[in-house]
């Protein structure tokens, strides 16, 4: 069944692609089989992560980047992530509203995803969906994160180039020195650059980035855009292209992708192992006496975890 769906997707069938995305998103038991068929086809697409605080203009900029990439003859896949309600598990996914001009373009596939309890700015399934879009034949994949603060860095381990979108109100020089996303973005964009404070933020950012020793030989440029007016979009696209060329020429693209695959394996292992162990534990299949003792306070959780890992096939070291 998954094989047929993959084959159908490879003929360019959007509905088959959409069904496969859903399978990856609900962590279906068929995912390993799907991925086995898709993996030989991977690596052709270039993936750009778009991140930044809520309301910075990520969706609007993404919309304009799609338009420009289409003019260059590239096909585009978009993953737009919005937050899941921690209370109900539901979500309102509204990034598409900004991308209406592309709904009927067969060269554009847009998928809205809910973060589903994941805290890194993407959803667990995002990396799997990037693979599907790559195999489907998209030239460019844009991944838009939920509105983030300073430490939601998932997108860096998923994308080839990471773009951080800020607005003039995003903060003064003190804010910009803080850790997290500021340390790892490849390109900085000050959107809504017609507002007060844009030039000052640009100066501050540039100064900070020059001080930072660029160990990989890349000093992230600070661009300004007004997505709403379509200003600065060509420059942003060209800066992405320049970064891409530089990563390819220096071999860093290969290194980055290797690191990302390694990270993906570790994340997946952690997620699945935890789910499996927790399920066993909560169903009372193993260690039921231990849980009661921890609840009573007669055994400490450190010792309990050690014992559980030893009993689960010698996982304790």
């Amino acid at each position, binding site marked *: 069944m998954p094989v047929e769906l993959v084959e159908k997707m490879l003929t360019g069938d959007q509905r088959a692609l959409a069904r496969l995305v859903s399978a990856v998103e*609900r962590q279906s038991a068929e995912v390993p089989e799907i991925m086995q068929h898709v993996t030989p086809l991977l690596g052709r697409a270039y993936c750009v992560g778009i991140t930044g605080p809520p309301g910075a203009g990520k969706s609007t900029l993404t919309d304009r980047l799609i338009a420009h990439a289409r003019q260059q003859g590239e096909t585009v896949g978009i993953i737009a992530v919005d937050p899941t*309600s921690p209370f109900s598990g*539901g979500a*309102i996914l509204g990034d598409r509203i900004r991308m209406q001009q592309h709904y009927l373009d067969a060269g554009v*596939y847009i998928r809205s995803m809910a973060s589903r309890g994941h805290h890194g700015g993407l959803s667990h399934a995002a990396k799997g969906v990037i693979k599907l879009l790559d195999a489907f034949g998209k030239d460019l994949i844009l991944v838009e994160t939920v509105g983030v603060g300073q430490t939601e860095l998932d997108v860096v381990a998923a994308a080839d180039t990471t773009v951080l979108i800020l607005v003039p109100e995003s903060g003064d020089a003190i804010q910009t020195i803080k850790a997290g996303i500021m340390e790892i973005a490849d390109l900085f964009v000050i959107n809504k650059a017609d507002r007060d404070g844009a030039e000052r933020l640009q100066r501050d950012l540039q100064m900070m980035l020059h001080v930072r020793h660029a160990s990989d030989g890349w000093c992230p440029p600070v661009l300004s855009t007004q997505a709403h007016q379509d200003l600065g979009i060509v420059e942003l696209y060209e800066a992405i292209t320049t970064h891409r060329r530089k990563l390819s020429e220096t071999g860093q693209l290969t290194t980055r992708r290797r690191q990302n695959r390694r990270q993906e394996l570790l994340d997946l292992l952690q997620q699945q192992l935890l789910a499996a162990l927790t399920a066993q534990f909560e169903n009372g299949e193993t260690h039921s006496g231990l849980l009661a003792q921890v609840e009573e306070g007669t055994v400490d959780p450190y010792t309990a975890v050690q014992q559980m890992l030893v009993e689960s096939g010698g996982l304790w070291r």
Partner: protein
Amino acid sequence: MTTVQRIRVLIAKPGLDGHDRGAKVLALALRDAGIEVIYTGLRQQPEQIAAAAIQEDVDVVGLSCLSGAHNVLFPRVVELLKEQGAEDVLVVGGGTIPEHDIPGLQANGVQALFGPGSSIADIVDYIREHAPQRS
């Protein structure tokens, strides 16, 4: 692996009216019921709605129309979904739909209609109960 099932609903505004208060209120209620809602914005052509429903692989499409053009626009969305192999998607409608239009719309594949005075809880319950089970 542990499988996570979530109902996905596309809320769409076909036609030319600019009132999406009801659509937004319903979107929030669905979210609070644990459903993932994709909202596509105002003034959509049926073609755009069908394309979004296919790409997003939704279980349900909820159409809201206050312009009086529902008899044309709603069945057109159903038809386009069918043409693209998505006949299993549940299509429901709301807005200013007169009672006497309901049988005709249902005959054209809009399976439930919620006119003025409908309770939000009823709509949410209907969607939960009737969303197709996907494998």
